[in-house]
């Protein structure tokens, strides 16, 4: 075969290079660690650095600094990391699975279901553990309902589109049920409780909450991180991914199950925290590019750090704590708009 003459614009220099990631990931990890340390330090009660070492060496003997660090701040920081990382990772995975950068992890109704579960739990006067269990269970149930209904519909046509449409329907049903729960709730005690709970907060986080969320969170995160190569392939669409040898059906259910575990456990511990799962994957994609091998760990780190920063704001802006859901929307939505204006090449 004769050699082709190269066109002028074929030269590598004339083309923008796709970013190769490695260094950005290390930088993100360092920034994440810095945020964790900063968040542990932040607060009314000042714990000098030299005390930290003493606390870590002998947690039982360290008195008030030990209680502040290990019982108050550490659980809160851990919960923040888990929730931020969980929502961002599942958001990134969903954007690949649904081939749409505007998808957030509650697209199949997980948040709406979990919100209703919590509202119902408060309405029936359950304790905090009962409310969390109700929330988690209804989050899972909403997504199962979506999947069951979608699989009955999708004998012909695009299974992904069917899922999204049914997810919107199920989500709106549970949102209506939340309104119903609020309407019938006692306006002096239970209505404010439901309202505050739905606004989201990490203020009341207890060691027990972290224990409650840890298992489903890790169970959701690990498979997603392991499947990150397949997420690349899935973003080329159902048929092409199958022709490339990906087991798309199996992958789809694993990803949906994991993302639902993450979202439902996040909502059950901290209430409705919006925008994180949509904004952070975008930001991560801008920094490290679209390759899920790097994008997924980057979203995880960035999500954890972002959640801590927002929670730091919630703790320190005002004398009383500002609900987290309000801040994530106030910060997240304009930030997302900024990202959209910044991104010149479509969605990265």
């Amino acid at each position, binding site marked *: *075969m004769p050699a*082709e003459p*190269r066109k002028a614009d*074929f*030269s*590598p220099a004339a*083309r*923008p*290079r*796709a970013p*190769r990631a490695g260094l950005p990931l290390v930088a993100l990890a360092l920034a994440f660690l810095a945020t964790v340390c900063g968040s542990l330090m932040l607060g009314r009660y000042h714990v000098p650095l030299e005390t930290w070492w003493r606390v870590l060496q002998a947690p039982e003997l360290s008195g008030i600094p030990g209680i502040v660090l290990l019982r108050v701040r550490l659980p809160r920081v851990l919960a923040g990391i888990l929730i931020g990382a969980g929502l961002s990772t599942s958001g990134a995975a969903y954007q*690949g699975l649904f*081939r*749409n*950068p505007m998808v957030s992890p509650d697209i199949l109704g997980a948040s709406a279901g979990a919100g209703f579960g919590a509202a119902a739990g408060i309405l029936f006067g359950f304790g905090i553990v009962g409310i969390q269990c109700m929330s988690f269970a209804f989050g899972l149930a909403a997504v199962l309902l979506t999947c069951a209904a979608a699989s009955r519909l999708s004998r*012909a046509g695009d299974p992904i589109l069917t899922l999204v449409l049914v997810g919107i329907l199920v989500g709106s049903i549970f949102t209506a049920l939340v309104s119903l729960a609020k309407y019938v709730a006692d306006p002096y005690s239970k209505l404010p409780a439901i309202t505050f709970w739905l606004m989201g907060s990490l203020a009341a986080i207890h060691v027990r909450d972290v224990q409650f969320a840890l298992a489903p969170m890790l169970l959701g995160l690990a498979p997603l991180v*392991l*499947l*990150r*190569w*397949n997420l*690349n*392939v899935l*973003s*080329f*669409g159902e*048929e*092409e*991914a*199958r*022709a*490339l*040898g*990906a*087991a*798309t059906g*199996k*992958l789809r259910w694993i990803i949906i199950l994991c993302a639902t575990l993450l979202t439902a456990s996040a909502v059950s511990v901290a209430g409705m925290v919006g925008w994180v799962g949509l904004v952070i994957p975008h930001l991560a*994609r801008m920094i490290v*590019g*679209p*390759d899920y*091998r790097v994008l997924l760990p980057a979203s995880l780190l960035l999500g954890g750090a972002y959640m801590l920063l927002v929670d730091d704001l919630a703790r320190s802006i005002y004398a009383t704590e500002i609900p987290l859901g309000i801040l994530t929307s106030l910060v997240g939505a304009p930030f997302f708009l900024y990202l959209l204006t910044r991104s010149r*090449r*479509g*969605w*990265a």
Partner: protein
Amino acid sequence: MRLEIECASCGYGGKPVVEDVSLALGSGDVLCLLGANGSGKTTLFKAVLGLLRLRCGRILVDGADTASWPQRRLARTLAYVPQAHTPPFPFAVRDVVLMARTAHLGLFGSPSRRDAAIAEDAMETLGVSHLADARYTEISGGERQLVLIARALAQQSEFLVMDEPTSNLDFGNQVRVLRRIKELARRGLGLLMTTHFPDHAFLCASEVAVLKAGRLLATGKPEEVLTERRLEGAYGVSLRIVEVDLGLRVCVPEMI
């Protein structure tokens, strides 16, 4: 190796789109599938690739029925070259080609250095190595088509199934793609492709098949099958087939 489509019928919902089609090709063959829009070419391809269940008939590779094969095994035998498209995310060309290695990885696997080397080789063969670091969403349609062929090559399958590899390309890029196709056949790959241009079948096909309304009109050597009457029957326009230098034939439509 030998790929056989035996009395295949398939379609969507209640409506059959392809009926009773039998075709066969071996390693080193280029089988060109011609037919009007909606004649069932793409549907037949989906069935061959295992994306659409056959109503009856079989797809055989060296005599073995592929119906029970898992998608991974099928992908290691048949690689698919879709029409150049835009994915929602700006992957690097290198990574797009690397995705071909999925069929050789486990569920939780990630490509190794060896996989990366295979992808580099494939890009080298198709002459797109200089694009490796560019974003797939920003290269031209012709470059994308070559990258997709490189990806199929990196899949290390015995057969390539190409859906209109020359559509949406300018004349120069069409010729470039056809040359690569001939070269891949010389390397011993079996190629099954569709095209809208009878000329392309004359240029690179060792066998052609003509589909009309889901049924096979004829199959055989290009010179025997692509006659004026048969092409007029397939496309519904009057045309002439003219012999130019060295016995090469071209198809010219009549404009009145």
